């Protein structure tokens, strides 16, 4: 299948998700369950996407583990997103020279 068709579907769905509620919605969601569901979804999605995929992310299991440990440690101490992201990569890169 042509890549352009995938991109159109991807972009179309993503745009509609953003546009429809922002444009039409003028009051609050009442259902506690639905509100809570939407609240937890981002964390569930990101967790499922990150683990176990992060362990293969550098193409080398050992450097991926080191990068993950650094990311978890810095995230635990509330470092900014960009610091955590780049430090994980730097750790994986530097450790790569020692194996």
């Amino acid at each position: 299948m042509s890549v352009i068709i995938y991109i159109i579907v991807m972009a179309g769905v993503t745009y509609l998700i953003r546009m429809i509620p922002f444009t039409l919605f003028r009051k609050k969601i009442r259902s506690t369950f639905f509100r809570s569901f939407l609240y937890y979804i981002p964390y569930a999605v990101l967790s499922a996407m990150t683990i176990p995929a992060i362990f293969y992310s550098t193409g080398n299991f050992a450097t991926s583990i080191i990068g993950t440990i650094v990311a978890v440690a810095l995230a635990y101490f509330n470092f900014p997103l960009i610091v955590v992201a780049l430090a994980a990569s730097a750790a994986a890169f530097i450790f790569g020279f020692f194996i």
Partner: protein
Amino acid sequence: MKNDFLKGIRDGIPICFGYLSVSFGFGILAVGLGLSILSAVGISLTNLTSAGQVAGVGIIAAGGSLLEMALTQLVINIRYSLMGISLSQKLDGSFNTMHRMIASFGITDEIFAVAVSQKSVSPFYMYGLTAISASGWVFGTFLGAAAGNILPPSLSGAMGIVLYGMFLAIIIPPAKKEKGVLVAVLIAVFLSTVFEFVLKSVSGGFAIIICSVISAAVCAAVFPVPEEKEAEE
């Protein structure tokens, strides 16, 4: 109007730099999966989202169905609907339907976080914020996609962890504070590991959907979020 636009640009500069380096990782990832530089840049220009794009290029590379693509984007990006509803409470009087339709394109985690912290939000403030942030996102993707081929494998490999590092930085601080988030994370991690090693026949996009819907539904039932907490998100 012009002042609002410039203020949006100024407030968006940190987002721009953050996006520049994260999308660099996306560019490398996309090209590594066999996409062209133009496709990678086109995806970033039209989608402006990290997790959805990472899952999306995975589906393209695996030759997944369009239904899988649509459902995956729906589940991963459904949070933008909630953010849109939340942000709609802050819009000023000049925000008519046309402005809402245009500005909604810029709702990302980071842009939402900056915009919702304002007292009131005008269309041109959103445009400034989105323009500078999207520039970083698209330009970074181009650099990563173009450099992915010429960088040494040790460096381009190491950049592959950038996005996942950012995801961890989003998940971990709230998981530390809130039991519900922690349980949501643990259930999702457990299920995705099961899909990876046991239920291998389920494709990546559907696995993410199933893991996150089950996890979020369980937590919504067991740890309902009180009204006021949702307001500060």
